């Protein structure tokens, strides 16, 4: 999922790296010119030696050996996310992710994080609409410790009332930081609410504040009992390990947690939209105007073969780098915008999202930016992309799968995410070939069938009084 839909347990990433106060500047800049990373490309890996098996209690296990350094990455993915929040309690899944750090009967209080830190480990977690994942990175000879700790909090979390209240305040501060302080994030919540109609994807992962405040101990306990079970989880281990060792240790740790009856996931209707939505937001805190268009499109889990792949390529062609079509037309040639982008978020159980956005240059209207964007989109709807453009974008996407192999975290994430949304190890491994197979006509056809007005929400965000 894109970063905007993913939220973590710790806010202390402010200062990762030295000196981060300046890196912020860099990161912002990275979005529009310097960095060629494709925002729209999903994390999928090139073929890699991967083993997969299941424990008797139903827990799935994926092992990705990487012997370059004596370290490992462990991830535990639960097939539960914000879309499973009960009606009226949005934010419960994310809140619950936080509670997983608040102690168990055997490892009380903050001993989970302290024990890992004392052993040189890093850890964190994140929640999206579809899944919740927890991870640790640690020296290979401490993997068993990390497995013990994860298995323990899967088995017997301690949800005492004072913890729940304090952690709810932490989550509300997280919401203020990520959403309430940011005009674009606030408007983005309303875009999703409009785009997905009554589907739970229309609710923010972090929850509406009034509903977050309603979460109590009983709701948390109920959520834990019905979702945090080995038969609803995927263990991914990437790093300096052998499959036999992981199998033995997984059986001795997670294997001892009993399977529990799960609440079946809700199947939600995704009715065809009958008309486009236009959203005009005025925000006194906004200092720049912002245009975005989000299309509800088929995700990798739903799409016909080749369809989602074509959308990944299309996102690259439209906004992936400084020679992409939107950037060339709006930023370089017409100087209508200072920043543009396009992304395809196709890693979801239900519908995906295709987004384009632009920040108008000073004095340029949102209408002018929208017209120019529509012209660019029309080109892709009406005619196939040039061969050189297509080749450039495909090369970048395929290379991203190789670069992904540089990082245990990225590799483990790719497999964990795929399994969590119902895809397979083979899907991850064949992704580069499937991208390579996308033709110019595929791009045109899928642009025409996916970028349709009635499936879209257009946002005009302007500085000004509410």
């Amino acid at each position: 999922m894109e970063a905007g839909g993913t939220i973590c347990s710790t806010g202390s990433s402010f200062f990762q790296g030295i000196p981060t106060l300046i890196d912020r500047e860099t990161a912002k800049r990275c979005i529009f010119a310097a960095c060629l990373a494709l925002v729209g490309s999903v994390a999928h890996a090139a073929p890699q030696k991967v083993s997969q098996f299941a424990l008797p209690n139903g827990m799935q296990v994926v092992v990705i050996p990487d012997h370059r350094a004596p370290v490992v990455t462990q991830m535990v993915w639960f097939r539960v996310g914000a879309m499973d929040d009960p009606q009226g309690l949005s934010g419960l899944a994310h809140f619950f992710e936080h509670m997983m750090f608040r102690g168990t009967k055997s490892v009380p209080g903050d001993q989970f994080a302290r024990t890992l830190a004392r052993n040189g480990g890093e850890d964190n977690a994140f929640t999206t609409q579809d899944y919740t994942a927890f991870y640790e990175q640690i020296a290979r000879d401490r993997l068993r410790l990390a497995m013990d700790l994860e298995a323990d909090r899967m088995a017997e979390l301690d949800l005492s009332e004072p913890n729940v209240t304090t952690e709810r305040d932490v989550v509300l501060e997280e919401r203020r930081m990520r959403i309430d302080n940011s005009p674009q994030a606030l408007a983005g919540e309303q875009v999703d609410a409009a785009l997905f109609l009554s589907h739970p994807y229309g609710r923010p992962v972090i929850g509406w504040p009034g509903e977050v405040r309603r979460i109590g101990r009983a709701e948390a306990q109920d959520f834990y009992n019905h979702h945090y079970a080995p038969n609803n989880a995927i263990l991914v281990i990437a790093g300096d390990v052998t499959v036999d060792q992981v199998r033995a240790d997984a059986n001795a740790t997670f294997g001892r947690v009993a399977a529990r009856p799960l609440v079946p996931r809700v199947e939600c209707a995704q009715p065809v939209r009958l008309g486009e939505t236009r959203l005009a937001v005025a925000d006194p805190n906004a200092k720049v105007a912002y245009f975005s268009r989000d299309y509800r499109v088929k995700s990798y889990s739903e799409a016909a073969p080749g369809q989602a792949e074509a959308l990944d390529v299309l996102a690259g062609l439209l906004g992936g780098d400084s020679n992409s079509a939107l950037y060339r037309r709006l930023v370089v040639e017409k100087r209508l915008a200072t920043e543009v982008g396009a992304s395809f978020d196709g890693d979801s159980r239900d519908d995906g999202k295709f987004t384009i956005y632009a920040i108008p240059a000073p004095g340029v209207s949102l209408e002018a930016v929208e017209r120019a964007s529509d012209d660019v989109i029309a080109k892709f709807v009406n005619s196939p992309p040039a061969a050189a453009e297509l080749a450039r974008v495909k090369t970048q996407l395929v290379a991203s799968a190789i670069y992904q192999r540089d990082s245990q975290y990225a590799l483990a994430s790719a497999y964990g995410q795929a399994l969590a949304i119902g895809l397979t190890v083979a899907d991850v491994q064949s992704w580069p070939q499937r991208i390579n197979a996308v033709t110019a006509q595929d791009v045109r056809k899928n642009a025409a069938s996916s970028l349709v007005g009635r499936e879209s929400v257009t946002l005009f965000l302007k500085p000004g009084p509410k």
Partner: protein
Amino acid sequence: MAVLFGLGVAPALGAPPKAIDIGANQTVWFEEDHTVPMVAVSISLPAGSAYDPSAKPGLAALAAYLFNEGAGNLNSTTYQDELARRAIQLNLSPDRDYFTLSFVTLSANLKDAFRLVGLALQRPRFDADAIVRVRAQMLQSLQQEGEDPEAMASRRFYELFFAGHPYGHEVGGTAAGLGAITATDLKAFAKWHWVRGGVKIAVSGDTDTATLTSLLKSAFGPLAANTPPAPPRVTRTSAPSLTTVAMAVPQSTALFGVPGILRNDPDYLAGYVANYIVGGGDFSSRLTNEVREKRGLTYGISMSFGDYRGGGYIIGQVATKRESIGESLAVIRDVLRTFAQDGPTADELSDAKTYLTGSYPLAFSSNSGIAAQLNSFQREGLPIEYVARRNGLINGLTLDDVRRAARRLFNPTRLVVVVAGAPPAINKSVKPGKTAKPH
């Protein structure tokens, strides 16, 4: 269940990096690994914002962001296409001392990557249309920072913390500064700062010493050999203060800091460990425990201990709803006061050592991570042997060392605090934009 409270020795790193001589007293650190067919390169040029002329803050950053906007006979579009169609990912990160440019490339394209980077270093174009475009982007970023209390607090904080020093202005400059910059300024800046003298280069991945040496020599050999002087030492430390920047946001951000020390100060590592204990550790610091875990006042609080070439810094950050900012700052002062007075406990020091030494290998688990980590050691002026010695130095610190550093450095009466937001209980309001004159 059995939780192992192990204190064992951290696993050794792989083979140590090699130093490659590329002539003119330049050594490049190289970690060879052929597992993934890619190479990561990190290059730091003595071309940071501390070298901006006082009337033109933002010059170093504008030059940096124009790095990939045309070189030699290639205009911006062609240059970017040469990179993009080979999937060479270039990242441009100007900072206060250095401009770090890093890239990853498939090993098959390494030669082209160095050719293109070398061309941009040797013959940057600074075409008029590119200057207009990139300057407009930077101005728009400055404008948008007005939405972000963290950015606003940071801008004001650096002005106060490094008052009168070139570290005091933001790397991204000011609207007036950016507006005043000309192509002549950019060319002169690149000529004196995009040079061979004082450049720091680290490489990790799928290549070999001979290939790399030859590519490095052709990219960097033609550059001027002059070495820009280090930025001046920070001599005047700012007076303790509490400043607010008014913003109508629901959550305020506070930056708080005390003067740090230079990298070659004998107390540097002890100070680094002390900082980890009081505010640096993600979930395990005293500040996180008091402000987040016990009181639920914030999502994140942390302190960063670091150094520029001319002076060190210890800077913390916290964000909380506006009515809680006073309480949060009071708790922070209490935590620092106790810590400066008594220092860490023996257990805290022991935990800090096992974390800092045990997690060290994590930084060496990817080519990108290795290149970045090695390059950061190089920027700090450390010898290549430091890579292997670092954990021993941390393990060798005594409780007295860290207590001494805590007492010397973490004195809350010296705090410079800037709050951006609208805290009700704090007066002394400064309107955004009405900032101290850059020097």
